[in-house]
């Protein structure tokens, strides 16, 4: 299959790859770049475990071809911790039991990251609605919603971590 030159940034780092057009972005991230924090769990855009940010928007990376990321900036779960310091969302997910098995967690955190980057207050109902594209089979979501609220608090105390 003919490959297509694709350039994009992932977690601030530029990449130039020759990609088969059919390869999904999630496969490119996981297999070509070795960024295995983005998980693949449903192949059908139902579960959100593969959520990343593409130019600041939360996108399920199994719903996009790698070549469609040409010229874009991608942020994955590996890009959140700065100098070894966990992002407030990551701290919050530990503190508020936002996870059990951890498989949905990177996607949950990336969707939540997008939510918090909107720079406004969400009600509990809005948080639940925005997380409804991300499935978790372990926690029943309660700990995840609590984590998002707690992270919001942590960040407002520190003056905000999300630019």
């Amino acid at each position: 299959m003919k490959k297509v030159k694709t350039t994009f940034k992932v977690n601030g780092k530029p990449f130039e790859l020759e990609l088969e057009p059919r390869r999904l972005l999630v496969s490119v991230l996981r297999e070509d770049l070795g960024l295995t924090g983005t998980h693949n769990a449903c192949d059908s855009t139902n579960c959100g475990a593969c959520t990343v940010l593409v130019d600041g928007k939360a996108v399920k990376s199994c719903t996009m071809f790698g070549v469609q990321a040409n010229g874009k900036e991608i942020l994955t779960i590996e890009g959140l911790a700065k100098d070894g310091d966990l992002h407030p969302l990551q701290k919050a997910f530990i503190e508020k039991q936002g996870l059990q098995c951890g498989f949905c967690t990177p996607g949950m955190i990336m969707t939540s990251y997008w939510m918090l980057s909107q720079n406004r207050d969400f009600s509990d109902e809005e948080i639940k609605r925005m997380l409804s594209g991300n499935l978790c089979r372990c926690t029943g979501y309660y700990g995840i919603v609590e984590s998002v609220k707690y992270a919001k608090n942590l960040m407002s105390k520190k003056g905000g971590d999300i630019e």
Partner: protein
Amino acid sequence: MSESKLLVRGAGKYVDDIKLPNMLYMAVARSPHARARLLSVKGGLNQNDLKAAVGGGGEGWGGLTNPALAHPVFAQDTVNYVGQPVAAVFADDRYIAEDKLDEVEAEYEKLKPIMTIDEALLGEPLHAGTKSNFIMQRWLGTEFEDPKSPVVLEDEFSVARIVNNPLEPRGLIADYDGSKLTVYISTQAVFSIKDGLASTLKLDESAVQVIQADTGGAFGSKSALYPEYIIAAYAAMKYKRPVKWIESRSEHLAASQPGRGVRGKMKIFADKDGVVTGWRGEVLVDAGAFGGSAGSMSPFFIGMQLTGPYGIEKAHVLATAVMTNKPPQGPYRGAGRPEAAFFRERMMDLLADELKMGADEVRLINTTTENFKSPLGLEIEASRPFFGQAVLDLKYKEKSKSDKAGLGFFVLLSAIWGGESARIDVQSGKINVWLGGNQHGQEHYVFVKKLLNEELGIPQDIVTLNKGDTSMLKDGVGSWGSRSAVVAGAAVVAAARKLKKQVESKEGKYTVENLLRGNYSSEVYENQNVQLNSFGAVLATVKIDKFGLVNVEECAGCYDIGRALNPKMIESQIIGGTMQGIGQVLYEEVVYDEEGNLLTRNLFDAGLPIAENMPKFTIQIVEHPSKMPHHARGLGEAPTIGVPVAVVRAIERASGKRIRHTPVKPQELLK
């Protein structure tokens, strides 16, 4: 770094995150038919390469009395469910492996499938050489004459099949070096996988090592040995290259051995005051196309639990499993316990309505003030003290007036039989621990560190709980059946006490310093051959809109967990299990058409609850110590047992319609 710190960074190592040099990817060609003769198959590895049947052990293994019912690794001359493995292809790249599925040519002659329990009972046998579609049938309890009680109630119930759907699908890597097979796998039970692979592939047990990768949930679906595991191992040995197989979600839905799928006919006798004087039951399990799976033993397990926490003196139950053209039934969180509770508690509600008694009163009058052994073989502790208090704590009377609440009582029987192993090594001031059954989201490391701190006085930060690895322990069982904190916990305590004795005999006296300056290793296999109860009570309230859509408003529960070793995780497991219970009642089902085609094609169809489905949770933890050395009781499956019962009753009261099955569809509730 703690486990969860790795996981929130995306730095876990799930099996699909592991890459070995020169690795092949496997894709599986599957039957498109529910039942057909397989006239020929060409391409990839298939029945012409490997003629073997799945052997096994552990939770997913129900035993096999008739070899004709064994699940073939590759379909042999017939196929018996949509999704059954027929051939496997291999390539350097996952996408190319998928492409190569086109090279498999299979010719089928379709046969009429058997898709329901009734068809299985009446229809021709699925398998050649068998006389019926029964896998097992046996009576439990003792025959009794109808009591001369004024109230006699009969009804019939069913629970649909549900796919376990952990977020991480099944998967493994098999690697063979010419003499030893090493398997990295997402699993609940490394030893079951090792034993099963060794027996199926006729390898010496010492030639198989199974290592657990980080495991992204399971809910029962990752303890059985599956045909795909055997194919990957066989291919690794044949091609002398590591082989990775990661299932797609559609494969998980079609072929991962889903749970439930059970029918129950109940007949009870009772006095005017609500005391149940006799219980007759028939349990029918849709065990799927082959024997050997959990479906082969689940009718018995459901049957023995039918009287639950009640002191019912007479009971007689016929437990039956039949074969249909669906994947074999496996364990799904609760694995028989939720079915038994559903049948029983539905009858208790029927009785309450018949006698115009409160649902709490009719239940409480049947609880016991002493330890009780039921005619079906279930041993329960005195249940009235717990349930009497639970009804008050749940404010049933009060809430029942305004909101038409539903109530459920249950007893969780932890699967502590078989025991568990633990090993503790001390070297260079560090403590390393291995367990026979390992975490896949439950944070076993928390109770391990806590118990070692209590037993040995050692700081928690020098203790590492390692992943499951069959080379590190002589034997082990697995993490399933609400057992780990109980039996793996007891094994950790026993291994710690043994370690203490080793230090005493070497140093004269145990101190933390004496322990940490030496090199020690202590391994135990602890087996407590008793029945262990965890009581629980759940209250639910619902609202139903004009479209029949049910919104669960509150789920409150009292759970006796013996001793809370990890309170945050306990709360999280109760909430997670509550959502699975709600899922069973309102959304989740695997649907086949009459031809046996699978209509449930993705996670959306499968009906997993979403964040917006969350009710208000009220959780009360009761710590009534068990007889285990560390006083723990089982928890994991508790909410999936109690929640469906309470939610169904709340729906019944809010809608005025008798509910006899799950899931409950909105159209059934329209006025």
